[in-house]
């Protein structure tokens, strides 16, 4: 299983983004050793043939695991599928998951899809129109901010009625992990977080976890909170990102 050798079996291809940190957080919570390969998206490395052989979709995160039980290396991409892979392969004690087929397990899958297909894509579009789009379209900006806030209100209601403070059952799961990174950049996306007190409480609860903090800082700590403090820094960050985001 997880190797004690110098070279960990798992390699994570990532960068400091809400989708990337999902995987490093899960790896840290599970205590698995892994090697980080940082992808500098501004260089277009994610569209180079060697990386497309790992992920034909040309996006990060992706992982390679050489300790796959059948002896062949496996590549997995799509952050939600990587999280499922990690818990099914390595979380035998159900630290951040529930036994397969249990009621809680299906609920975890439901919230996992909710983030990966709802919160992620819609908040990503909010970022695009609020921060990066060369042409400012108020309608589009409002559309995606409003939809993201609607999705947040669904999370808010779930968390407000949760006795443990987590999305499903009594523990932190991959449903919380997949969601956390996006909530932390809400302000960047133009979302008014003050509207979601239960979500903020949940965020604080998660941030008390040393493993989560370690995973969140991969491959380096996020600069977003610092950036948001000054208009000049915001402007600079938007321009830098626009260079790689807008062409494709």
């Amino acid at each position, binding site marked *: 299983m997880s190797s004690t050798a110098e070279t960990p079996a798992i390699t994570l291809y990532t960068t400091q983004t809400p989708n990337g940190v999902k995987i490093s957080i899960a790896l840290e919570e599970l205590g698995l050793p892994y090697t980080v390969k940082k992808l500098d998206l501004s260089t277009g490395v994610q569209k180079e043939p060697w990386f497309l052989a790992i992920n034909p979709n040309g996006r990060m995160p992706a992982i390679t695991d050489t300790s796959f039980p059948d002896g062949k290396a496996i590549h997995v*991409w799509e952050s939600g599928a990587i999280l499922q892979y990690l818990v099914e392969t390595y979380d035998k004690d159900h630290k951040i998951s529930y036994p397969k087929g249990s009621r809680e397990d299906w609920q975890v899958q439901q919230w996992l899809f909710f983030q990966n297909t709802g919160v992620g894509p819609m908040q990503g579009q909010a970022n695009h129109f609020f921060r990066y789009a060369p042409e400012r379209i108020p309608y589009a900006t409002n559309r995606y901010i409003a939809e993201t806030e609607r999705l947040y209100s669904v999370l808010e209601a779930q968390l407000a009625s949760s006795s443990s403070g987590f999305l499903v059952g009594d523990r932190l799961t991959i449903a919380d992990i997949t969601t956390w990174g996006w909530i932390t950049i809400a302000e960047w996306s133009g979302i008014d977080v003050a509207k979601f007190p239960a979500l903020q409480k949940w965020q604080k609860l998660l941030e008390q976890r040393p493993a989560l903090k370690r995973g969140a800082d991969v491959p380096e700590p996020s600069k977003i909170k610092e950036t948001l403090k000054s208009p000049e820094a915001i402007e600079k960050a938007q321009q830098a990102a626009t260079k790689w985001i807008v062409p494709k």
Partner: protein
Amino acid sequence: MSESITLHSHKGGPNPWKVVMVLEELGLKYNTIFVDANTGEHKKGPYTALNPNGRMPTLVDHSNNDFTIWESGAIVLYLIGKYDTTHKISFPDFDSTAIANQYLMFQMSGQGPYFGQAAWFMHFHSEKLPSAVERYVAEIHRILGVLDGILADKEYLVGGKASYADLSFIPWNWAFGFFGEHVAGWEEKYPNFTAWNTRLNERAAVKKTKADKAAVN
């Protein structure tokens, strides 16, 4: 309730029909309740008690203590996990399952949201916003290109057979007519994708689902 499963569906939207396809493939009997989005009944009780996200589909399994689950991808995983014991459209081994889930996630987070936004800016939004249309048309073509590349040496996405991973893409593939000139010539541009799409549309369960959808629209 005459059948043991109830599907809360929507006539026009792609996602409920993804679940129908899986129900049909597995030969499961189910009742359908169409929720009328025009009246907003999906944004209030009693529907939001089943699905707090106020979207369709939601599935209720009466044979499992009225077990209730929403998000089409999670419903598909529930159905195959519980009912596809002979692995007709799923896989017995962990390896293939991991990759099938990767493609399901790609459909759910890559194809669905972006095809959906393209449809919105082309057809539903009152004002013409060319740069928004262009953004999502570019993404449609990018995704078709990715699938075409993946399918260059394969008949199906995983394990040489049609599975829930392949089927999940079909409802949005049906929308090409809707995208019109923006995807003109897609059959020639993406031949591997096209051959795969044709193959899947020839399946009895897919044909039945398509006919059922046409009948209510």
